[in-house]
C-alpha cells in the first residue's frame, strides 16, 4: 500500500464520518432502559460487600481435635505400657511357694504315674489349695521363663503346654528338683512331667534369664539361677556342694535319665570320685544298672578307674554283709 492509498483511505473515512455525524441516536426509551439497568446493576455491585480478611483471633471450628490427639496419645502410651510392663513383672518378689516333696529312700518306692499315651492329654491340674506335702507323688519342677509365661496360673498349665509336651518316663521326671524352697519361680505340678522346654532348659538355665536377674538388682537370686538345678546336672558339672544341697532338699538320689543312668553312674563315667563317695554315702544304689545293663562297677572297670572301682566294691561288700 502506497502513501497515496493511505491518504485516499483517510479522506474516505473523513467523508464517511462527516456524512454520518448528524445521524440520529437511539431512541430515548432505549437510552432510559440502558441507564436504568446500569443503575440497578450498580446497586447490586455496591451491595456486594468485600469478603472480610481471615480472622486468626477467632477459635477454629476444628478446635476440638485436641481431644482426639490427647486420647490417641494416652492410648498409645497405655498400649506401650501393657507391652513392656510384663518384663518388669518377671522379677517380682518371691512368692510364698515352697514345694519340697519328702525324699524317696528307695527308687522303687517312688510312685510316679505311668506315662500317658501320646494320644491322651496329660492331666497337670492340681487344686491351688492343695499343699505340696499332701501328696508324695508331686514332683517339683523348675519352670523357666518360657514355661512361666504359659503357666500363669498356679497349678493350671495351659492346654497348649499340655498338648505339646507328652509326659516322659517317670524316672526322668523324678530328676527335677527345686533350686531353693523359697525361689519364686517354682511351679508345683502333679506327678506329671514338665514340658519339653522345661526338660531342655532346666538343667542349664539360659544365660538370658540369669543376666535379666543380675541387671534387675537381685544378685542372690541370680546366683541361685546359675547353679545346677538338678542332681544330674550338678553331677555332670562336678559340683559336689550343689549335689549335696540338692540331696538335702530331697532330690531323688537314683533318678534316671533317658538311658536309665543314675547320678552315680554319671559320676563314675566322669571319674568324679568325691561325687561317687557322696552319692554312696547318701544311699545311692551301687548295683543299679542302666538300660544297657551296665552297672557303675562295670563302668569303672571299663574306664580303668581303679579307685572308684575299689570304692564301689567296698560298698558292695558292706551291703552284702548287711
Amino acid at each position: 500500500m502506497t502513501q497515496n492509498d493511505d491518504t485516499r483511505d483517510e479522506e474516505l473515512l473523513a467523508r464517511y464520518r462527516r456524512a454520518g455525524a448528524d445521524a440520529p441516536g437511539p431512541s430515548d426509551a432505549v437510552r432510559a432502559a440502558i441507564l436504568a439497568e446500569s443503575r440497578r446493576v450498580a446497586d447490586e455491585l455496591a451491595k456486594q460487600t468485600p469478603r472480610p480478611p481471615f480472622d486468626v483471633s477467632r477459635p477454629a471450628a476444628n478446635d476440638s481435635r485436641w481431644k482426639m490427639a490427647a486420647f490417641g496419645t494416652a492410648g498409645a502410651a497405655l498400649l506401650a505400657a501393657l507391652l513392656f510392663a510384663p518384663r518388669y513383672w518377671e522379677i517380682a518378689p518371691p512368692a510364698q511357694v515352697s514345694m519340697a516333696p519328702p525324699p524317696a529312700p528307695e527308687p522303687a518306692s517312688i510312685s510316679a504315674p505311668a506315662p500317658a499315651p501320646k494320644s491322651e492329654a496329660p492331666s497337670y491340674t492340681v487344686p491351688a489349695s492343695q499343699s505340696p506335702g499332701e501328696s508324695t507323688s508331686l514332683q517339683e519342677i523348675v519352670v523357666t521363663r518360657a514355661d512361666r509365661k504359659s503357666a500363669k496360673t498356679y497349678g493350671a498349665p495351659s492346654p497348649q503346654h499340655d498338648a505339646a509336651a507328652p509326659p516322659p518316663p517317670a524316672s526322668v521326671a523324678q530328676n527335677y528338683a527345686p533350686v531353693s524352697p523359697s525361689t519364686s519361680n517354682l511351679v508345683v505340678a502333679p506327678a506329671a512331667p514338665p514340658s519339653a522346654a522345661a526338660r531342655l532348659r532346666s538343667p542349664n538355665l539360659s544365660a538370658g534369664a540369669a543376666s535379666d536377674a543380675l541387671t534387675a538388682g537381685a544378685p542372690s537370686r541370680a546366683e541361685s539361677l546359675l547353679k545346677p538345678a538338678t542332681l544330674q546336672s550338678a553331677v555332670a558339672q562336678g559340683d559336689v556342694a550343689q549335689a549335696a544341697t540338692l540331696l538335702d532338699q530331697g532330690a531323688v538320689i537314683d533318678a534316671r535319665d533317658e538311658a536309665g543312668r543314675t547320678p552315680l553312674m554319671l559320676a563314675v563315667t566322669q571319674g568324679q570320685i568325691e561325687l561317687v563317695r557322696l552319692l554312696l554315702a547318701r544311699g545311692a544304689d551301687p548295683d543299679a544298672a542302666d538300660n544297657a545293663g551296665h552297672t557303675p562297677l562295670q563302668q569303672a572297670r571299663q574306664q580303668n578307674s581303679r579307685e572308684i572301682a575299689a570304692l564301689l566294691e567296698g560298698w558292695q561288700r558292706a551291703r552284702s554283709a548287711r
Partner: protein
Amino acid sequence: MDLAEETDENLMLRFGRGEAAAFEFLYRRHESRVFRFLRRNVKNEATANDLMQEVWFAVVRGAANYQPTAKFTTWLFTIAHNRTVDMIRATHRLQSLDAGDDADPEASSPLERLAIEAKLEPPAQVQSQDEAAALLSAVAQLPAEQRSAFLLQAEGDLSVEEIALATGSSFETAKSRLRYARAKLRQLLWEYA
C-alpha cells in the same frame, strides 16, 4: 479522578465497583458510534434500537467480571458485531420460512443475504440523494463482511488486528475485506460524481 479524564477501562472498573455515574459517562462517550454501527448494518431503526439495548445490557451485566485485558472498544464492538450477526441470522431464518425457495441460493451467509437485499435498491434512488447520502447508501451496498469491517474501523476506530479479533477472522482476511470495501466505496462515489 474526574470521570472525563478516565479511560474507558477505568470507567468500566469503577462501574464494576458499583459506581453508576461511571457507566453513564462511558455510555454517553460511545452511544452514537455504537448506534451508527448497528444502524448501518441492519435495515431499520427499530432493529437497531433493539440491538443497541441488547449490546449495552450485555456490557452492564458483564461488568462484575470485566478484566481490562484488551481495549474496551474492542470488547464493545465485538459484542455489537456478534449481536448483529445473531439478529441477521434470526431474521433470515424467518424470511426463509416465509419465502421458501425464493431465497438466493448463492448467498453463503446472512450478512451476504442482507447485502444482496441492499443491492436491490433502485440506482435512481441513490442518484437522487446528495453526496453524504450517496456515501451512506454506498456503504449499505457493500457486502456484509466488507461493510462490517469498514464500520468497525470507521465507527469503532479498531485496527486491522482488532477487526480480525472482533469478527473472528484472520488478519489477512480482515485486511482484504477492508481493502475491497474502500475500493468499492471509491468506485461508487466516482460513479456518483
